[in-house]
């Protein structure tokens, strides 16, 4: 079986000793992240370049050019038009360069919490929407909690794998809520 790689840059360093060449290829790839993303979005939407051009009211040549552009050559206007044509919304974020990975995780947690709180807020006054928001919040809680447990196991595997059998006293929902509230 042949060697496997996660990306083209790794495959290239395996087959080519020419460091200059390899560097120029990875620089080219890195300079076109946005145009590659546009291409991927169009393919995921199952649209041809011709269809996107029709939606953008431009030529197919322009769409092809955008999908091969260097990121710095793509205007915000073209980005907006292209995303609209493939039924996508743009979200721009600005981050302090000093932000580290821990800060990024905290940022995403608070965004998630804000979005959930907004969902609950807009559902108020409509009984059906309130029930839906409550159900979704409970599901989100379980999914996020289970996901975090998996991360915790990876972070401290010894603690989790200490004993083959661990029996804890039953925890009521109220006791659990108290613990969660004290941490938030």
């Amino acid at each position, binding site marked *: 079986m*042949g060697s496997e790689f996660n990306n083209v840059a790794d495959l290239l360093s395996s087959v080519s000793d020419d460091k200059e060449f390899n560097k120029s290829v990875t620089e080219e790839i890195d300079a076109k992240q946005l145009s*590659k993303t546009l291409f991927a979005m169009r393919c995921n939407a199952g649209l041809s370049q011709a269809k996107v051009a029709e939606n953008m009211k431009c030529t197919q040549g322009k769409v*092809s050019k955008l999908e091969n552009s260097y990121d710095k050559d793509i205007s915000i206007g073209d980005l907006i038009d292209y995303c609209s044509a493939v039924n996508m919304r743009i979200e721009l974020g600005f981050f302090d360069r000093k932000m580290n990975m821990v800060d990024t995780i905290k940022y995403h947690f608070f965004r998630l919490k804000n979005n959930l709180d907004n969902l609950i807020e807009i559902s108020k006054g409509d009984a059906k929407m309130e029930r839906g928001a409550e159900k979704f919040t409970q599901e989100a809680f379980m999914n996020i909690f289970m996901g975090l447990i998996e991360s915790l196991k990876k972070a401290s595997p010894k603690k989790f794998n200490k004993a083959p059998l661990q029996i804890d006293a039953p925890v009521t929902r109220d006791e659990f809520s108290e613990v969660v509230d004290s941490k938030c």
Partner: protein
Amino acid sequence: MWKLRMSDFFEARFKRFQKKHAEEAKAILNNLDTYFRTLCSGANPVNIQAGSIHHEPDGIKAIDQKGGKGKLMQSRLYVFPETDARVLHVISIGTKTDQSGDISECRDYVKPLKQK
């Protein structure tokens, strides 16, 4: 997440090709990167359509050098997306003049994969 897997003869082919056609190799690798990232984003190989991607027999795709700088020689990198295993086989590379021989070799490579 998809993986890239080289054929056993790809390295030798690539080294030979890169020596003679460096700019073409650079452009082709950039197009391969775009194709691979699109697979990783969840797109169905059937929906990945672009001027640089040519559909050959037996599900083989040929990626060309479009988008590269200057007047480049017509070239092809042959890949096969093994969808069930999420593996993109990177099989061979050559100029268009070697196309029929290359495609025949790729079809032989792909045969046991399609029988799985």
